[in-house]
């Protein structure tokens, strides 16, 4: 039994956007890490993880994101996260992920933030 996760990558206004739709669990590890490493190999500096409101994220999924935060820090990349439900925003704050990745309510606001910083 595997959980469904759809991972798609796009580029917009100076950002690499990694769209995640589905369950972010241990089954998502390979797809998410591949998307991130491909983006990094292409020289991405601003990377947005764009979640869906109904995505489910468990502790294994959080561990995947902590691993990416670790890599991003070494590469001096900026990570942004958008689209999270209020439940998972709360969990990300509790865990401390927001020390390393900025949360935005919408993709548009994340993109605007990148443009302002440019």
């Amino acid at each position, binding site marked *: *039994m*595997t959980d469904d996760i759809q991972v798609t990558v796009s580029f917009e206004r100076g950002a690499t956007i990694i769209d995640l739709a589905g369950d972010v669990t241990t089954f998502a590890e390979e797809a998410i890490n591949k998307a991130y490493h491909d983006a990094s190999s292409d020289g991405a500096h601003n990377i947005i993880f764009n979640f869906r409101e109904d995505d*489910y994220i*468990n502790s294994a999924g959080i561990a995947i994101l*902590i691993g990416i935060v670790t890599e991003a820090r070494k590469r001096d990349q900026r990570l942004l996260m958008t689209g999270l439900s209020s439940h998972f925003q709360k969990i990300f704050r509790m*865990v401390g992920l927001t*020390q*390393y990745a900025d949360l935005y309510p919408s993709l548009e606001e994340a993109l605007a933030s990148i443009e302002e910083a440019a």
Partner: protein
Amino acid sequence: MIPPNTTRVVELKIPGELGYERVAREAAASVARRLGFSPERIEELQTAVDEACTNAIRHGSKSDARMKVVVVLSADEDKLDILVKDPGAGDSPPADVMTPDIQAQVEGRSPTGGLGLWLIRQMVDEAYFVEDDESGGNQFRMIIYRTMDERHPALDDGSSSTDDEGDNQ
């Protein structure tokens, strides 16, 4: 006529294989909706049940689909009592639950993971392993009240909120 304080019990068995924890969390959410839990409480419940079942599958069943994890949901008017039982195929539950140090993980001073039990503690009102000398397996019990107002007064002074015996799960 059914007495008003009757406990409704839903029991399910899931294979000891990752992915089936989703079945348990959706069943728990369905029961909680019937009890009138708020959407926020249901999300907290789902996270707790998912993590507890993931631990029971990964550690208590060693991810062996032939093993069974039993989830018993006992619904009262004001709370849901959840018992997750596994065969105890892996190591004993760890003794302490430590707050995750994400800075140490990001700086490579500590391995990632070990969030599950800690996360459960943040989501429910009570969470602890139950001694089970008869079966030899693990039993993990969680209690979540329908609203924060219905919590037992003793929980609010922090004296008995959680009594876990685990870490790194």
